[in-house]
């Protein structure tokens, strides 16, 4: 098995800060919204922790952004603009996850330094990193000081509209986090992808020619 270095250190640091941070945000967000249902901490503690970690995650986002903007690794996030190619690749990947994987078929996607995401991952992460996460940060900051940002909030339709957007994205991430962890266990071993996010190295199957390097 060859090893390729797919997750540079900044990416790994960013990832694990995000992982812990997102879990904390989801738990404190749940406590804030559902104070009658659970009692892990007081409302005020939940709000304070939520806000502090929120700002840490915003700073963390900029680690990710600056890394990718100023290195050639940004190519992993380049979208497939050819719709047919994109559809074919996505369909093939979906068929693998929905059927082929049960039969023991190999993964149609081959990880390489500049193509570490499969087609479905690529699309999801673009939407997540470039739309959902910024939106969540933006709505979160607006809610952090409603009075200060009242002009912008009013323009968007009011604090309820902003909060509804924030909650909808919270709902998405609450579901996504379970899917994300499970999909990470679908490597050639259960811990393969998780290890690679710790060490930076992904093991790839030799018989596929060591993966395509562009």
């Amino acid at each position: 098995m060859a090893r390729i270095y797919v997750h540079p250190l900044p990416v790994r640091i960013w990832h694990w800060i995000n992982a812990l941070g997102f879990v904390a945000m989801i738990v404190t967000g749940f406590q804030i919204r559902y104070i009658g249902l659970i009692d892990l901490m007081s409302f005020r503690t939940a709000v304070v922790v939520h806000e502090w970690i929120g700002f840490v995650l915003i700073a963390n986002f900029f680690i990710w952004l600056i890394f990718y903007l100023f290195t050639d690794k940004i190519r992993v996030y380049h979208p497939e603009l050819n719709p047919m190619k994109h559809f074919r690749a996505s369909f093939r990947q979906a068929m693998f996850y929905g059927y082929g994987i049960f039969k023991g078929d190999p993964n149609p996607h081959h990880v390489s330094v500049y193509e570490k995401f499969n087609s479905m991952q690529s699309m999801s992460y673009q939407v997540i990193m470039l739309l959902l996460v910024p939106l969540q940060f933006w709505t979160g900051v607006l809610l952090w000081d409603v009075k200060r940002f009242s002009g912008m909030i009013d323009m968007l339709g009011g604090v309820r509209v902003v909060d509804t957007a924030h909650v909808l994205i919270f709902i998405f991430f609450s579901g996504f986090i379970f899917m994300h962890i499970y999909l990470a266990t679908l490597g050639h071993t259960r811990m393969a992808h998780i290890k690679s996010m710790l060490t930076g190295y992904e093991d790839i199957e030799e018989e596929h020619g060591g993966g395509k390097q562009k």
Partner: protein
Amino acid sequence: MASSRSEGAATRARFRVDLTIAARLALAAVLAVASLSAYAAGGALSQLDQQCLGCHSAKGLEMKLVNGDKLSLQVDGTEFSKSVHNKLGCAVCHANTSFENHPPVKTKIAGSREYSLEMNKICESCHAPIFKLYEGSIHAALFRDGNTYAPVCTDCHSPHAVMAKATYDTASGAPCSKCHGPIFEAYASSVHGKATLACSNCHGAHDVSAATKEGQLKNACLGCHQDAQANHQKWLPNAKRHFDAVSCPACHSPTAKRKVDLRLYDNVAQQSVAEKAGVPQFERRARSADAKGAGLDAMALYSLLREFNREGLDNKTTLRGRLEVSTGVEAHQLTRSTEAIRDCAKCHQQGADPFQSVTISIVGPDGRPVRYGAQPEVLNSIISVDSLGGFYAIGGTRIKLLDWLLALAVLGGIGAPLGHMTVRWLFKRYAKKISGQEDS
């Protein structure tokens, strides 16, 4: 004894005439030397006034008015001599009094209230600026609306005992408590009442306006409690937002029943929507939108808002929500800050009591709000995202549909991987079975 009755009447008539003549002679003499009268030193009354008081200090002196009221004609000379009008004397206000018409047996006074109202017009002639303030007040507005018992000058300022300082009596709450009794009772045991602060400290005196006028009382609180906002910011997240959306008594009158009032607000003009006098649209529209008469539900509120947004092209009517206490009495039961509500869960929880009571309001022509009931569901329904975009208390007024979506997302997020794992495991078993091979 028919003749004695007519005799009695004739006697009384003669007596009255005699008295009239006697009084007129006396008055003539008095007026003749009026120009030569001199004031004694030390605020004592002029000779002219003393002459008036010669009759008018008599206990029980009164006259019967047209409607049967008895108008007391007795004046306490000592009090008048201590009052700020002592140098003016009787003649300045009672200028209509003259030799020819005193006592005014021919003058018909309709009633004691009518007499007061008539005499009150004289105050304006010297006190024009204060009178102007009064005219802008809620008391004057009520009076103009037709309530002749709304306070006029002499209802608060005893006409013959006007003092330089305010007339407020800290022990009894007079004169305000004359009409606002229950409020004074509640106020007297509150932290401000015990500090013997007068009502006018917060409400103004001559320019007292409707208590719920936008921002006014809050500014009165902050006028003395200037560091209140800074103090709240130390521990209260979004303190400034709370100051906008929650009235001070809502937390500082902890035993009060709280509610939400949704005020019609014009985003373009940046002020509350007010109803013009004589054009009571709000209640009519609200009633017609409220099909079942049980208070506006979410759809009814939405259509009511649309009606307000239809008429003018340059307005944008929205709803601004405010958490308040239910009654004026509760608003006066302010306690020490240590007893104020600090527990976020009091409001930021599903089913919290402030959100069980909702009204929609518009500013009425006299400044007081005109309210119409709404159902609590207006705060939680999905339509609220459009009609109530500006009012939201995290957790407390959340949209239930989103809770279902969350449950779905979490169950799906856990269920899909579990299902997938199960299918993989089943396939492995099946593959083992048909091929008899060991799986790696």
